[in-house]
């Protein structure tokens, strides 16, 4: 059997199949819409970041000009931190819908500032975004199932099966060729918008190639599943039901059940619990003896032991010390939170090996740096920046250095790693 002539024959045959051509168009349009939606969202986020970076600098400069001491300057000024979308985020928004990608920090206790944010749209975060990763992971396999499940069953029902096999001589090659062309068409319709968006957005070549490779391998997996089921000598509805069952199992039951199981075996403190604990610690500090607060503070900053006043009047050094002690009070919860998220993410990664849709979605989110690990990296950057702010202000507060606006040129500037 000449493979090239068989492919040409089936390509011509497929070109007459209006149902297939319709599905091809639908897949292309939905893939393009998903990509377009991602591009619009990342553009919006980039514009927001650009706007806020400029406003942040203006706002802080204006605030500093109004203040006359380091404590007030630190108290009234804000510092914008952000996690810009990667050059592939448009394809997989991932955690960016559920976890904040920007914070406006102050020199106050940090933990509450990290966890006081809500997602931009909680309802959207709950159901997930219709992005390319979701579309290709969960929707395209359904299209393949609808198109391929009755490859042989429909010919049996139409009474053509024996004629086709008798005419071609063998029964395997014909079906493989048909399935290859249909599946190949769907794969091309799926990745074409991705390639276009990749070139438009200057996505790195390696990222784009990896993503295309993942998508192809994933859709080939579903194609093989469809071929296997469609070779059953059963009616088309029976085969379709079985395939839908596999899709529900791999795409819904395994990941959802796994998430419930992981949440149960890896308890993680809630952000609100951390927020409340920290705020209570800070509020209580107003009523505690100064020595109590400063003793706890000096456990971490012994270098400032000789610089503090213990009188009854308000002192900025003491104020910021009890802000930090508030963070220290929640440190155990905060570490448990980060550790728990990492462990859940690790287990979810293992679980995804049993759920190809979840595996693909995670793989694309990892490429797009929108996964859980990326959000923890940003959180670490925020902590490091806040630490840098404290290192800038503490010497000036404890040594009571004369206030000088010019000194703010040495103020740490937030710079995202990605």
């Amino acid at each position, binding site marked *: 059997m000449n493979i090239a002539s068989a492919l040409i024959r089936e390509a011509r045959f497929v070109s007459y199949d209006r149902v297939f051509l319709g599905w091809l168009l639908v897949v292309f349009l939905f893939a393009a819409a998903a990509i377009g939606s991602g591009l619009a969202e990342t553009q919006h986020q980039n514009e927001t970041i650009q706007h806020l970076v400029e406003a942040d600098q203006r706002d802080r400069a204006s605030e500093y000009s109004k203040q006359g001491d380091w404590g007030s300057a630190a108290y009234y000024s804000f510092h914008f931190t952000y996690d810009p979308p990667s050059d592939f985020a448009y394809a997989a928004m991932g955690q960016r819908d559920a976890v904040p990608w920007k914070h406006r920090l102050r020199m106050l206790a940090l933990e509450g500032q990290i966890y006081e944010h809500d997602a931009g749209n909680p309802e959207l975060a709950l159901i997930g975004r219709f992005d390319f990763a979701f579309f290709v992971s969960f929707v395209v396999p359904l299209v393949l199932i609808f198109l391929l499940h009755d490859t042989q069953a429909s010919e049996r029902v139409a009474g053509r099966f024996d*004629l086709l096999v008798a005419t071609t001589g063998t029964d395997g090659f014909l079906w493989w060729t048909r399935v290859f062309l249909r599946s190949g068409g769907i794969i091309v319709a799926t990745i074409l918008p991705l390639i276009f968006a990749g070139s438009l957005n200057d996505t790195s070549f390696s990222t784009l190639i990896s993503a295309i490779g993942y998508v192809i391998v994933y859709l080939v997996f579903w194609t093989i599943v469809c071929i296997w089921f469609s070779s059953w000598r059963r009616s088309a509805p029976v085969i379709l039901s079985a395939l839908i069952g596999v899709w529900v199992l791999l795409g819904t039951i395994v990941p959802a059940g796994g998430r419930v199981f992981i949440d149960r075996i890896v308890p993680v403190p809630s952000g609100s619990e951390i927020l409340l604990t920290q705020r209570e610690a800070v509020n209580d500090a107003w009523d505690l003896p100064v020595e109590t607060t400063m003793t706890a503070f000096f456990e971490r900053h012994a270098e400032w032991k000789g610089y503090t006043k213990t009188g009854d009047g308000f002192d900025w050094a003491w104020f910021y010390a009890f802000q930090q002690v508030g963070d220290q009070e929640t440190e155990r919860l905060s570490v448990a939170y980060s550790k728990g998220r990492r462990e859940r993410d690790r287990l979810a990664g293992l679980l995804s090996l049993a759920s190809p849709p979840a595996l693909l979605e995670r793989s694309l989110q990892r490429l797009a740096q929108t996964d859980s690990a990326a959000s923890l990296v940003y959180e670490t950057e925020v902590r490091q920046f806040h630490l840098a702010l404290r290192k800038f202000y503490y010497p000036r507060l404890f040594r009571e250095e004369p206030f000088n606006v010019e000194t703010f040129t040495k103020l740490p500037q937030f710079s995202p790693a990605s």
Partner: protein
Amino acid sequence: MGNSEKLRADQLQIIRSGKEVLSGISFCVDSGEVYALLGGNGAGKSTTLLSFLGFLPPSGGSIYIKGVEVRSNIKAARRAIAYLPESASLYEHLDAYENLRYFLQLAEMPFDKHRIEATLDRVLLASDSRTQRLQNYSKGMRQKVAIALAILRDTEILLLDEPTSGLDPSAIDEFHNLVRDLADSGKTVLMVTHDVYGACQVADRLGLLRAGKLVGEFTAPAGQRIETEAVHRAFSSRHAK
């Protein structure tokens, strides 16, 4: 086994789902001969054809095509045969040319427009309907396209499963003439039918199949047809049992 023998069933037994569908039937068909297997519903007629195509491997006995056992080379056996299934459903969203082109390409045969036109003329398919989709065809017109395909395959052997089912009387006569022409040109034809009159019109030999057993065989005298009355009596009496 002589050189002219193209098809042979030798003590062919087929068991499906624990039930014996064919019980050791034996017959052969020579080159240029039309052999009709006559029987009622469930007699095993189509099962016999599917066995020759290699779809149903024998539970006992053997099947030979051109002297080669089918099981030893199914692909070669199928390539030697043009098969016309009962109520052949070609692709309804394609026209006659597109259907013929597709199936001929499946058989790795060239698409020769002049030969196709000539064959469609031969099966009397109206010219103006040839570019219409088959969904607009009558059953008889669809059968003509399928017959044209069997002819265009240009194989030595034709297996026809209830080929006149659904055809009107004049189309049946035309078809019988066509089958006779093919046999006279050296083709070997094995057809299964329950049409006693039609089988006697066209067949050189006729086997009566009942409940999986070959219960009688009739041969046309030289230059004459098989006597319909005799076959009808045998068919009716045995069929009634």
